[in-house]
């Protein structure tokens, strides 16, 4: 009997099995990371926070947790409503996000939910909360569509890519005077794909010619093929829509490919982890941001001081997470101290011109965030606001 024939059936099964295996098994199941930062007893609202503490978005989740804990200390030390936050890991996946939402809604009976970290997860998990009429406040979902359109219980304090990118690109063009661009984006993720759509429109509005467009998938490690194709088209800038882990690798490999020009990133670049992992390659990369670290507003200074106590370097994600808790506390206050799901949802609608680290904060008619964005650039290993 021939070797090939004897092995053909096991091999076939194996290929199928291996193909399927990759889909769901990227991170360990986690249900044990629940932690509380406030005493559970007494009158107060219980909030569930679904954060990506493991998986590709783990670098954001850790910062969000720090932001939430910093805000809780402040809110609970004040005289107003007491909040109690349960933090669970959504593993950066839709599946785990849904599991965590179900736990919050049915078992923990939370008044409201913060998160999940990724738009991709939110698009799958938020409908559960909408159905159960539990208000959700997204603190980092920036896909322009498919989040708050889910329904009238879904809110967010994060500006969408559509709100940040056009302004950021305009400012970048004023500084760099580019006329052509090569674009690279992740086409298997709601957020990076949506970011690409906005970037494409922003570039067209600025009259920038796109000389090449390439794609990648989240698990990819090698971007040399795409970068070679883009660099050979000789664009003035490279525009990249990617999550922080991919972004660091892309920027590093682009520099290795001999690319010395400017690079513009989407919101995924907004993480200290990006700079840490990309090292010197990150220098000069420009990103739109919803948080101005240099803002002298009292609310921002208070946030910076609170973060100093946690020992975590503040960034946009921790600022938005911090703001999320402040907004929920304000919503409870607006609801007259009542902590029912409907009360908080009604209270959120009344939040207006609230002082937060992000600036004066209000919601739009569509329950999206409204405040001023900024642009920042990596300089000497740090994000610095471009004035």
């Amino acid at each position, binding site marked *: *009997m*021939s*070797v*090939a*024939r*004897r*092995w053909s059936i*096991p*091999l076939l099964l*194996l*290929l199928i099995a*291996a*193909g399927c*295996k*990759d889909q769901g*098994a*990227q*991170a*360990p199941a986690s249900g044990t990371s629940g932690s509380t930062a406030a005493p559970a007893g007494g009158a107060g609202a219980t909030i569930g926070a679904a954060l990506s503490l*493991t*998986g*590709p978005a*783990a*670098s954001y989740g850790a910062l969000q947790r720090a932001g939430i804990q910093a805000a809780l200390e402040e809110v609970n030390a004040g005289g107003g409503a007491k909040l109690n936050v349960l933090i669970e890991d959504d593993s950066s996946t839709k599946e785990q996000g849904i599991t965590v939402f179900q736990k919050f809604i049915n078992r923990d009976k939370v008044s409201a939910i913060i998160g999940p970290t990724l738009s991709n997860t939110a698009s799958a998990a938020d409908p559960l909360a909408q159905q159960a009429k539990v208000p959700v406040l997204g603190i980092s979902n920036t896909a322009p569509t498919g989040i708050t359109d889910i329904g009238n219980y879904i809110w967010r304090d994060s500006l969408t890519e559509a709100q940040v990118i056009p302004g950021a690109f305009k400012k970048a063009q004023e500084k760099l005077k580019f006329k052509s661009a090569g674009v690279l984006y992740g*086409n*298997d993720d709601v957020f990076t794909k949506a970011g690409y759509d906005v970037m494409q429109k922003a570039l067209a509005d600025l009259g920038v010619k796109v000389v090449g467009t*390439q*794609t*990648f*998938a989240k*698990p*990819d*490690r*090698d971007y*040399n*093929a*795409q970068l*070679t*194709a883009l660099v*050979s088209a000789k664009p003035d800038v490279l525009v990249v829509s990617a999550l922080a*882990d991919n972004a660091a*690798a892309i920027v*590093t*490999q682009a520099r*290795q*490919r*001999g690319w010395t020009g400017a690079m513009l990133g989407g919101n995924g670049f907004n993480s200290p982890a990006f700079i840490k*992992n990309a*090292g*010197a390659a990150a220098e000069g990369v420009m990103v739109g941001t919803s948080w101005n670290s240099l803002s002298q507003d009292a609310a921002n200074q208070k946030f910076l001081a609170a973060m100093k106590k946690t020992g975590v370097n503040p960034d946009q994600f921790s600022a938005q997470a911090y703001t999320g808790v402040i907004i929920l506390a304000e919503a409870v206050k607006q609801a007259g101290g009542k902590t029912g799901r409907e009360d908080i949802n009604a209270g959120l609608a009344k939040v207006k011109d609230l002082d937060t680290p992000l600036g004066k904060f209000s919601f739009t008619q569509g329950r999206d965030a409204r405040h001023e964005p900024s642009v920042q650039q990596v300089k000497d290993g740090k994000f610095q606001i471009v004035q």
Partner: protein
Amino acid sequence: MGQQVLNGIFLGSIYALFAVGYTLVFGVLDILNLAHQAVFMLAAFVALALVADAHLSLWVALPLAVVAGGLIGIVLERLAFRPLRGRADSNISGLISSLAMATVFEAIALQIFGPDISRFPQDTFPDRVIQIGGATASLLQICIVAISVVLMAVLTLLLARTRLGRQIRAVAESPRAARILGVNVDRAIAMAFFLSSALGGAAGVLFGLAFNSISPDVGRGVELKGLAVIILGGMGSIPGAVIAGFALGVIEVFTVAQLGSSFRDVVSFAVLFLVLIARPRGLLGRAAAREA
């Protein structure tokens, strides 16, 4: 164009190195070692720990990690394969026990290193770019291709010229005949696992350096590619695995650049499918005469 060929050769050299070890064990034992990818991953982590935590130079850490890979291979053989040897269905049960070992190895890595992506420190390798004609390659990439080619050449020489190589080939041909002629079959098989896993480990370290991201599941994508490479090259054929490794690397790079990343694996596996229809033994596969 030239640059893309270079990118393909670079990627292909890692695939080839991975697949050479994979196919060596298959050639000797007729068993697919599905834990090969886990050895690949563990060796990368060993090198990372030596460089990042023990602050060793890469040139010390690399050979140590390769030897560690080989030792893991010997453990693997003792635990997953030797107890089953001689049973009627040892091919399938070995396949499954190696899958179990892969899961165990991944769980160990998950416990020690966590689920997130780990990276080599920034200054592990000098950042230098070299011009070759119109194309550029980093010093690291050139070293990776060179190390892969040297290791594959060493393996070929070792199998062709040394006493150990002759013993391994004799066992591949017929374990019973080899035993009658005085070959220590168990030792020859253990050494084949050592060599195979050392090469797989070397591929893992080079992959980790090349793309600077190591996680406990890093081997899975490469495992599928490696499987395609050894089938394409002809199961058990070492030159076949080398040729197929480079070919798949180049095919993959051109697929991504021309058709988009969604087609990354589609074209590779379509080629595999077509080759299997036209030539079921693979490119350089042996005729199955000795089995008859």
